């Protein structure tokens, strides 16, 4: 859609998982690597939210396409965010 893409340029940088992509799971590219991310912040709620499912669990790397290096960072960030009350442990 044209309208949504024009709004995205105004929106802050939010990274989305590859869950809906046409490439088969297990062979998806890492969205963090693509964006050149060096570290994941626990305060970045808009991004962390996309990598947790309805119940508050971290989504599997197999489906999101996140690289192992970034999945480790993501886990740490989500754990910090949960401790500080930004994300739920269990919904």
């Amino acid at each position, binding site marked *: 859609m044209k*309208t949504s893409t024009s709004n995205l340029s105004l929106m802050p940088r939010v990274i989305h998982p590859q869950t809906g992509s046409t490439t088969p799971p297990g062979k998806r590219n890492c969205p963090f690597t693509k964006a050149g991310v060096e570290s994941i912040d626990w305060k970045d709620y808009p991004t962390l939210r996309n990598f947790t499912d309805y119940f508050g669990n971290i989504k599997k790397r197999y489906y999101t396409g996140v690289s192992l290096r970034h999945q480790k960072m993501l886990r740490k960030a989500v754990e910090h965010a949960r401790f500080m009350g930004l994300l739920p442990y269990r919904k």
Partner: protein
Amino acid sequence: MRQISPRAYSWGASPINPMAHTLEPTSEETRVYEIAILLPGDGADKEKSESLRNIAELFKEKEVTILKKDEWKRMGLAYKIKGQETGQYVIFYVSAKPEVLKDIDQQLKIERGVLRHLVIKLPPKYEVVDWSLHFTAWKEGLAKEEEARGHDREEELKKKIVQRATRKVLKPEKPAELRPAEPGAEISTEELSEKLGELISDENLNL
């Protein structure tokens, strides 16, 4: 449009938030740390200011220099903490000696007005970002996107309605055109005319 390379435009920095910059420790003995504090949301301003003053005193005592202070707005929590459903985050970016952190951690645990606290070492080349601004910008963007989506849906619906209306107008014309083309219909008209002739020529009829 200006192209930004991924290195220069790294994590957190965005066109909305150009204030992102890296932090440097004040001396060789110190390091840069992040101390995040969660204050209760429905506490009075007096209590909040008191706990903040206590923390400032603690930092002074331990020779901790505050590089940047980021105070977020009051917001809802993901789960209840000590009976509180809302809270306020205050994030300090400090440069401190590594030995001091244990004491600070313990003191913050004892501090009454603090719900949760987190002391972490920042990764190299970490860029400080105004996260509350980031969050509000993200929410606004989401709302705008949804509005645009709604607008698109309305337009699609309108198109569909127009298409349906045009179809209804076209439908009754088509069968009228098709009927005369059928071969059976022509024969039937000839037969009909013959029968009519016979009927009219019938002598029993009193016309």
